[in-house]
């Protein structure tokens, strides 16, 4: 009897370990199974790569968001930043006819956008929620003013070569998919293999202890926003390439919500301190899978948001019960 009871406990412990550490894999697999049941065609190469293609731009932003949330902060300015940088990017492309200059401009501009957020949070001592609420409003307004209601459209001269960046394929793999995977990999390495990654989690977990260990908390926070900003810049460049025409008023809108949702579903703690880059990666894909399944199952598109909302709540609820153990 005793032996049996002990075995039982061991098993429970193991199961808890699995659900704690691999919750993102469990939910990902669950969703995949549901998708395959709804439509076996889901597993086609075309459909699978499509998930990546559709998720790439938001996904790259979500990588930046992962760092921000892991450090216990938030960024609402993702969509507006992407709109600003992609609109300006198109202008630079049309003026210079240089892809290299455009991507440099977008990412450099992203650095500055991130630096503004970071300095306002650290030097200005304003809550990240408020800072990014303000920059969200400001950047959207700037790009609307520059666009004057019309779209930013890529010139004939650069159209084909610029469009090829997002639409092209390498050995049959869409470029966007490669971009997304590479950026995710770099971010994962940054967070798991470098001092900087450790500092990010330390700041999110116990800021006081991090500071007393000599970590320059303000610099870490600023650098996080700068890194995220650079990723928004890359995302903006890819978005412009994908659409070739940027609507100032609507480009990138809702990206902040999708990015936060992906991070949350991926198992990163909203209080900071614990995060999983792989989780965010899967989170981005899960959002796309949900979308695809709903279309395949002929659910009215207006209900898409409802289902996504419910899934976010369930994912975060599952996390919070784990924490309370």
């Amino acid at each position: 009897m005793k032996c049996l009871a002990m075995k039982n406990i061991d098993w429970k412990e193991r199961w808890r370990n699995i659900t704690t550490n691999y919750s993102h894999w469990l939910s990902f697999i669950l969703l995949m199974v549901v998708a395959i049941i709804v439509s076996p065609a889901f597993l086609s190469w075309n459909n699978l790569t499509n998930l990546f293609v559709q998720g790439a731009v938001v996904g790259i932003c979500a990588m930046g968001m992962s760092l921000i949330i892991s450090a216990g902060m938030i960024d609402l300015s993702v969509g507006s930043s992407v709109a600003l940088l992609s609109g300006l990017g198109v202008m630079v492309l049309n003026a210079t006819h240089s892809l290299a200059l455009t991507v440099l401009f977008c990412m450099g501009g992203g650095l500055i956008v991130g630096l503004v957020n970071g300095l306002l949070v650290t030097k200005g001592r304003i809550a990240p929620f408020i800072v990014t609420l303000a920059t969200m409003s400001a950047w959207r307004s700037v790009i609307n003013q520059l666009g004057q209601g019309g779209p930013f459209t890529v010139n004939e001269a650069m159209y084909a070569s610029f469009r090829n960046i997002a639409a092209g394929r390498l050995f049959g793999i869409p470029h966007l998919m490669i971009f997304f995977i590479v950026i995710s990999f770099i971010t994962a390495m940054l967070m798991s293999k470098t001092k900087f990654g450790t500092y990010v989690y330390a700041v999110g977990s116990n800021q006081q202890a991090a500071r007393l260990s000599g970590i320059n908390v303000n610099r870490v926070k600023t650098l996080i926003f700068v890194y995220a900003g650079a990723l928004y810049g890359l995302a903006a460049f890819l978005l412009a390439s994908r659409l070739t025409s940027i609507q100032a008023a609507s480009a990138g809108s809702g990206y902040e919500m999708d990015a936060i949702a992906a991070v949350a579903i991926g198992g990163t703690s909203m209080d900071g301190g614990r995060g999983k880059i792989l989780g965010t990666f899967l989170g981005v894909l899960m959002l796309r899978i949900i979308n695809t399944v709903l279309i395949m199952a002929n659910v009215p598109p207006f209900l898409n948001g409802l289902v996504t909302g419910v899934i976010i709540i369930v994912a975060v609820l599952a996390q919070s019960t784990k924490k309370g153990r």
Partner: protein
Amino acid sequence: MILEMKNIVKTFGPVQALKDVSFTAGRGEIHGLLGENGAGKTTLMNVLAGSFAPDSGSIVIDGSPVEGMTPRKAASLKIRFIHQELNLCNDLCVYQNMFLGEEYCAQGWKIDKKREVQHAQRVLDSMNSGILATTVVGELDTSQKQMVEIARALLFSSELIIMDEPTTALNNQEIMKLFTIMEKLKHQGVTFIYISHKMPELFHICDKYTVLRDGVFIQSGDIKDIDEHKATELLVGKRFVQAHIKDGIQAVITDEVVLKATALQGKSFRDISFSLHPGEIVVCTGLQGSGTDELATSLFGATQLHQGSIETKGGPLNLKDIRSVMRSGIAMIPRNRKERGIVPDLNIRTNKSLAFLVAKHTSFLVDQKREHARFEKSRKRMNIRVSSDRDPITSLSGGNQQKVILSRWLEIDADVYIMDNPTQGIDVGAKFAIYKLVVELAAEGKAVLVFTSEFPEIQQLADRCIVLYKGEVAAHLSRSEISEVAIMEYSTGTHKGSLQ
């Protein structure tokens, strides 16, 4: 009110905070409750005020037992507890704070602001506080806030007022003002229980006293029957002193100066100067509110100094940047491990590496194999018991967590180790391991500055002892001068004369 607390027992987990304590206070008396930090004074009062339920024991008020005391019940029995830390909402006005939760209402729903302001002002004026009831609390200074706390207790005719270290933020003049009010209320029949570490105050205002030590009732009586010296002895008791760690390990103290602090001034201390030498262990002690907490963090650049300078071998310290303080050869083990030490979401290995990564690690990438090897070295030196260094830090016992935090700082190989209450909340075995480590560090030629208020610790470690009282150096004792009674006398201001 006649209060009797009988055979109160209260445990927190394995710690017995109160062991069969009885306490009595009569009508219209000021009763001093004496004891060292952690003697159980505040716990006893929390039981009385209904904040903690006792494990056993009873509370009898005016002859009738009170069952299941709660804060609300305590309030209806006209018992008021003025806590040591201020419990005021900074964004509300003085009168709003005073009436919080007990507002006057007109027509049953509308706050009767006029009546509240009038009543609050009447109480504030009766105290000669000079505070306007409509001021926003955030604009008051600390001593004024303390007056508001007291005014709040006086607002409704309380019969028993508990004051836990009410004078920490007050100057002598304000203390006298407070005492005048207390005397007046005493003659109206109000009972006070007055918790304080400061002997001159206790002997000035109290009629009776009760001494607690390690959660045990020691003695009670009229305060006129004892003097400050006797009270200190009662507080301290005669403790068994363990064998000496220092005797086994010899350290050579040289004349070189590794750290020189000159005329330091902060929010809670002033005019503090001292120097540290290699091989020396200096203990800085003081009771709660004496300024030791802030001094410890100021030396490391974690709290801003108002005045003064700190020099090391390499010249004046740049206190603006903690990393540069670390690189100048100073390490600080902070107090309160949970809040300031451990990073709960990181594993044991990373927790231990944090300071090294900041101060010594040069490459961008972190090699986990090397991290593990470094951890193994620390584990052997400190005898840390872990199954895997990738387990969460929170899976360790308090003592082992503290050893990890100490290892964090040993790795940067500093010249000066500042340890702020390094044995707080850990078991005896781990304590001794840490004492031994401190002595070994000194033998290696490090200077160690330990902040602690535990006498056994002072006796085990100190070559010299700096005692603070009210933010100033009360005494600078050499090893031969250190005794528990002497330290307690200096930290309670016994030799400071009367209040006026």
